[in-house]
């Protein structure tokens, strides 16, 4: 066993692990943060996307031991004080939540995109979403949700408690 210290969803934690685990393994199996999903294990589907130090990363492709000191945000850390995050609200309003398996990863992708660049163009939004596979929606509801999410997110800037 070895350990590193990371901040997960705002809480600083010392986490023990075997050695070869990916970030996804640790999130799901050690921390029971099961909102992050396994879909392919090869970085192809995007279901395991979380935000590490402000960047969207595919957690199945990241070795946990390389993350000493990292700030990690997962879908569980997005809503605060019982309030949904604006991006989450947008997905409900656009009816973009179907089976819901790919959705947490997509929301974390958009969170990283909009926090870095609230004015991301439609092309940039599509480029970010193109890293994700969704079999249910045919993607158009996701694009619609992303646009509404951007609007809600921009409206929320500065209003956070």
């Amino acid at each position, binding site marked *: 066993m070895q350990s590193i210290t990371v901040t997960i969803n705002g809480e600083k934690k010392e986490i023990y692990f075997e050695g070869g685990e990916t970030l996804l393994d640790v999130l799901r199996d050690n921390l029971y943060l099961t909102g992050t*999903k396994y*879909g392919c294990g090869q970085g192809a589907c995007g279901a395991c996307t979380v935000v590490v130090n402000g960047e969207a990363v595919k957690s199945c492709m990241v070795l946990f031991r390389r993350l000493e000191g990292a700030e990690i945000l997962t879908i569980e850390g997005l809503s605060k004080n019982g309030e*949904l995050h604006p991006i989450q609200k947008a997905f409900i309003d656009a009816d973009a939540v179907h089976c819901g398996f790919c959705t947490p990863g997509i929301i974390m992708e958009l969170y990283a995109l909009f926090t870095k660049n609230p004015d991301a163009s439609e092309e940039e939004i599509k480029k970010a979403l*193109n890293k994700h596979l969704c079999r249910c929606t*045919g993607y158009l509801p996701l694009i619609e949700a992303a646009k509404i999410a951007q609007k809600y997110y921009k409206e929320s800037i500065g209003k956070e408690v």
Partner: protein
Amino acid sequence: MEYKYIGKDAKRPSAVERITGKAIFVDDIRLPGMLYAKILYPKYAHAKILSIDTSEAEKMPGVVKVVTGKNIKHPFGDCLHDRLPMAVDKVRYIGEPVAAVIADTERHARAALSKIKVEYEPLPVYTDALDAMKKDAVLIHEHSEKYFYVTPLYKPTPGTNIAITYEIKKGDVKKGFEEADVVVEDEFNFHHMSSVAIEPHATIALHHLDGTVEIWTANVGPFAVREQVAEFFGKNISDVRVHIPHIGGCFGYKSDPGIEPLVAYIASFVPGRPVKLRLTRKEDFTSTFIGRGIRARVKVGATKDGKLTALEETLYLSTGAYADTGSNILIVAVQTSGGVYYFPNAHVKGYSVYTNTPPVGALRAYGHPEAEFAIERIMDMLARKLDMSPIELRKKNYITDGKTNVVGEKFKKSDGDLFKCTESVLEAIPPKVEVKEDENYLYGVGYAGLIKAPKAATFASKGCHIKFNVDGTVSLNMAGGDVGQGLWTVARQIAAEALKMPPEKIKVYNEIDTQYSPWEWQTVGSMFTFQGGNAIIRAANKAIDALKRNASLVLKRDPDMLEYDGEYVYDRSYPDVKVAVKDICRGYVTEDGTTIGEVVDVTSYFRLPGVQGPDPETGMGRTGGSYTMGFQGCKVKIDRRTGKVYIDHFATSIDVGKVIFPKGAEAQVLGGVLMGIGETLMEEVRFKENGEIANPDLIRYKLPRIEDLPGKQTVKFIETPDAVGPFGARGLGEHPMIGVAPAILNAIYDAIGYDFKEVPVTQDMVKKVLEEKGLTVKDKEE
């Protein structure tokens, strides 16, 4: 008619759970004392197992048990009992479980797998029905005569690799071809693909020490899982309990019992301990059901003015190592061979043939895309030969009021208006292409009709349990799996309409448990809205009747003199004489506390009326019961340099009878069309000669992404009310996939003048044709 809740957009009841990472999927479940299983797969796709030595593996750290198939006493199944949860004395496909390690962690289980020693004697491998049907082919199932089948329809042909044979005869085909002025004949091939839900399969099984079994799994057929597992172990059905948490997409391959019998078998070696098996994406490709895999040899005849006279067709399903789950796919394909067209004479025969691939199982719309691909392609070829517009030829031969399909089912006006569907697609995508080519691209348009019935078991039913709560709210329990299609939303809307109360007062179930949920056959065949909706209406009416009976005691009026409005039951002539629903839903408590009346807690079921099994002699009969029809069209542009096919515009129009949940319905079409584009242009489970899968991952198996979206999509719904469907609604979920492949291939012909007869049509295939036809353009020299 004005509706208050249906036909309007609604919030999905499951959305918040699913958007916050709180929705529990199978792999999110951890049970106390849980163990993990990993599976050993064979080196060969077809081989005798000579010996298995597990002694070294048993000594590995953390290992609790190593399991092989030697304890299996008999095969299991639904229609044809030819399946095994684990290989016994031979392996028949590359993803067949040979042994399993149960350990305290997945890592320990995996480490021990490599210590299991297996000796094989390899056998010839067949991945195509036509090879497996050859006279000298080695038998994949040596003793198929011993298998149990539920009806002779599913009887194998011993001494061959043919599992199921099914034939229909309508009219006189010989005479039909004599009447024909033109005959067109060709062969089409639909390759294998995978459902690829983003959630891979996972199951937990627990054999309790009292002999009962509990299973947690992602499957839309929990009652089928329960029955097959009970039968396999010789247990009472009531002693097997299946839980269905959230399901991360289905698309077909989570609808028949899949890995559940395997996990239940493995867990039986460690009674009292739950065992979880979660498949990797590779295993999800190699060891669950695949789909499609049908060849069709088609011959059609027509008079010179374009009237179809005869259809003769043979279909070959490469069904994989076990035929049970593919048998109905073949039967449905045969029954659907005529598509949306009227053939006075038809002779269609189908063979489901054992091969050494993963077993073929359900995949969105199974049987229909395969058969209709062939008929919709050949309709375009026939139109050319007749020098007639393909649209005119189609319209001339549509199954309309009073006409029969190839199994003899008569169509009624209330089955839908195919002409309206066609017109609305043509409005979006006119048949004439303004620019046929330019420097960079070649352009074309193509069309296809589509039709589908549920094609379920004749006894297939859905149930609805309505429980009134003492505050007048309602708890609604059903067993339909919401795999993303939005059926929990639809159920709530229909219940709101039928119970005349706002959806917010109705709490829809969000998990299924065979102990508590009303029985449902399986959530398949795009049947939930139709059957489940009617079950809801029946249950709502039953509940309203009970409320009126209770109110009758309180208001001293006969029940049929009372009205119900969701909040009150009242005298229809004196509405002031009323009692609140909340005061009578558990009986009525009178002033002195004496309670009268009944508790309003009801369950109702619905099945398709009058559906028959096919006639043993002719194969004919009312096998569909309820059809949904539609029309699809597309405009393609083909890159002359690369051969890439771009879908500029795709249009779909389906007569759904009545749209219940507009956004959900539209998304079903968008998702279905894109999945159709996937199977037409990119998706294929590719087999090597030795039966290995060449692309069992999401890097090499290409799923459509945003970059693959059509430039534009049009979705239109026609609403010709169905005679039986709830508020006139019909099924929709699978249909949008059906016409996609033939519409695109017809459009490709229009663009480049080449008839592709198989899917997928890859970029390389198109490029090769462009080169052969001299249609390419060289890159301009800088």
